[in-house]
């Protein structure tokens, strides 16, 4: 039994192809371009190619992510079901870390805190409002201002020991704040750290609204950024686990739902 989970995010499409509801056969991801539907199909194609499968050989597909409706009931992906991100996140994380009680998912545009129930469902959740200041796009925007690659932002931040307060209420305002820090000759390392501290502060305040219970897991693309974990740990005063391929956890959750559907047929 082969199933797939498709996570059409704000910035990336992530796909997981699963065998018998447990073995991951393939993972693939790619940037979401203007034609979201085509982007999703391209990534799906890539995933199939990785394992030498054809679409017909894949059974149920479940989609999640903010663009999930674009592939709902629409071939070739033709996802028969769609689930909200928080539900897919909880499912995927619980599968990887059965002791998880709190999931923090920081993607490109959204930050989410999820309280996970005993059986991997969602007890409560919180999502940032409108502004991407507490999410990955913010780091990308700031990386441009600092003229460094986004992959270097985390390592750069780790080099700084200074704490410069920054008010990350809004991407646009924060960028002008960064510009004024640049003008006052603050080092790139310090600015990079200030940016990560600010986002961690935002995410922590948000997640604390639903309460933080151990074990705590961090997923989403920003979990790959080594500069984000230390300030988040400090703000929440707890250990935080990061699963392998943190960006694919939502897609994995969707694939697990697909397997359950397949099993019920």
């Amino acid at each position: 039994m082969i199933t797939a989970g498709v996570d059409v995010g704000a910035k990336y499409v992530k796909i997981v192809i699963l065998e018998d509801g447990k073995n991951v056969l393939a993972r693939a991801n790619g940037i979401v371009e203007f034609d979201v539907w085509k982007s999703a199909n391209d990534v799906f194609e890539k995933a199939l190619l990785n394992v030498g499968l054809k679409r017909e050989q894949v059974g149920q597909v479940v989609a999640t992510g903010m663009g999930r409706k674009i592939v709902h009931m629409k071939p070739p992906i033709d996802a028969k079901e769609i689930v909200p991100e928080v539900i897919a996140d909880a499912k995927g994380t619980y599968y990887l870390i059965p002791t998880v009680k709190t999931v923090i998912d920081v993607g490109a545009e959204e930050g989410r805190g999820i309280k996970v129930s005993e059986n991997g469902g969602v007890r409560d959740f919180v999502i940032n409002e409108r502004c991407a200041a507490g999410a990955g796009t913010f780091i990308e925007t700031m990386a441009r201002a600092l003229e460094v690659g986004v992959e270097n932002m985390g390592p750069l931040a780790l080099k700084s020991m200074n704490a410069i307060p920054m008010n990350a209420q809004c991407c646009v305002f924060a960028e002008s704040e960064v510009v004024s820090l640049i003008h006052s000759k603050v080092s790139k390392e310090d600015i990079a750290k200030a940016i990560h501290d600010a986002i961690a502060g935002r995410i922590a305040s948000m997640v604390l609204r639903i309460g933080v219970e151990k074990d705590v897991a961090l997923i989403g693309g920003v979990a790959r950024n080594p500069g984000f974990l230390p300030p988040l740990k400090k703000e929440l005063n707890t250990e935080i686990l990061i699963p392998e391929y943190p960006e694919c956890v939502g897609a994995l959750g969707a694939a697990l739902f697909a397997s359950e559907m397949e099993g019920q047929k």
Partner: protein
Amino acid sequence: MESLKLIRTLISANNKFISEWKRLKRPVLGYTCSYTPEEIISAGEILPIRILGSLEPPKLADVHVSTNVCSFAKSCFNNALKGEYSSLDGYVFSHSCDNQKKIYDLWRRYTTIPKAYFINTPHSTNENSRRFFRDELEKFREWLMKSFKVEISEENLRSTIRTFNENRRLLRQVYDLRKGNPPLVLGSEALEIVLSSMMTPKEEHNKLLQVLLEEIDTREDVPKEGVRLLVSGSIMDNSELLRLIESVGGSVVADDLCTGSRYFWDLVNEEEEPMTAITERYLHKIPSSFMYSSEERFRHTREMAKLFDVEGVLIFSLKFCDVHSFDAPLLAEELREEDGLPVLCLEWDHSLSGTAQLRTRIEAFIEMLEEQI
């Protein structure tokens, strides 16, 4: 100047006078609004101190309140959550703006300070309001006496009023030092002096002010001349913004601030029955922005501008402050059209972030004024 240095250390809920007060096992009561009749509190040997915020990001408060809540109310709440006010025996909120009124509920739920009281301050000054406010203050007095097991007699009230009025007269003398050119006290210093008055037993503060007024005559580091400015707005609980203005050539010689002139400008009538006199003073004091009508406050702002011979006005609104956001354009128009004064309206969020952008605009405003003068 030694007295100024000391004064700066007093702007804290843990200053030496408050510690000494606590050591004598006397109660300390925090308050959030300049409409709180401190005389009634003080007459019961209870020390009233003003609850202030700080410039750090309010992370603990952000857990409970949304981003568009007044940053000052949020910052005070954050300080309380941090334990900054854990030595208080109680706190009293006044029905000022909606943000303060609603955040009172959060204080009661999430802080551990034992006693809490809410004064239903009226928002207009007619005869009905006067009767109502008089009753409210009488109830407040009874609450204080019962909760803290103290006596608040008419005699105590009378002597407290005298001490408070003395403080107000001395503060006016400090303000008078800014009428000349150059002013003998910086705007940032004057603000710190007023803030320290809110955090110190008034008898002690009166002594400090007397020393300060003597020391000022022989002051060596007399402030430089600059463009004479009035700063108008709601609350300013630290001198950073005024320092910023001073650093780019502005000389803040007058204000219309809740933590500035509006705190002490009006005296209590010493001839009248004390509770009536207190009611009158607080009801008819220079109004805050939440009071009806705004014109009354504008009149004071314009009077201050004339009295201190200012050349321009800076109006600061705190981000998400409804009442001041409504007032600012009206006040700006009056100042421009009636008094021919240039005005700059600015918004800030009670933090040090974004100061570079503020500086650019204040700098441009001051340069513009320098060219005109």
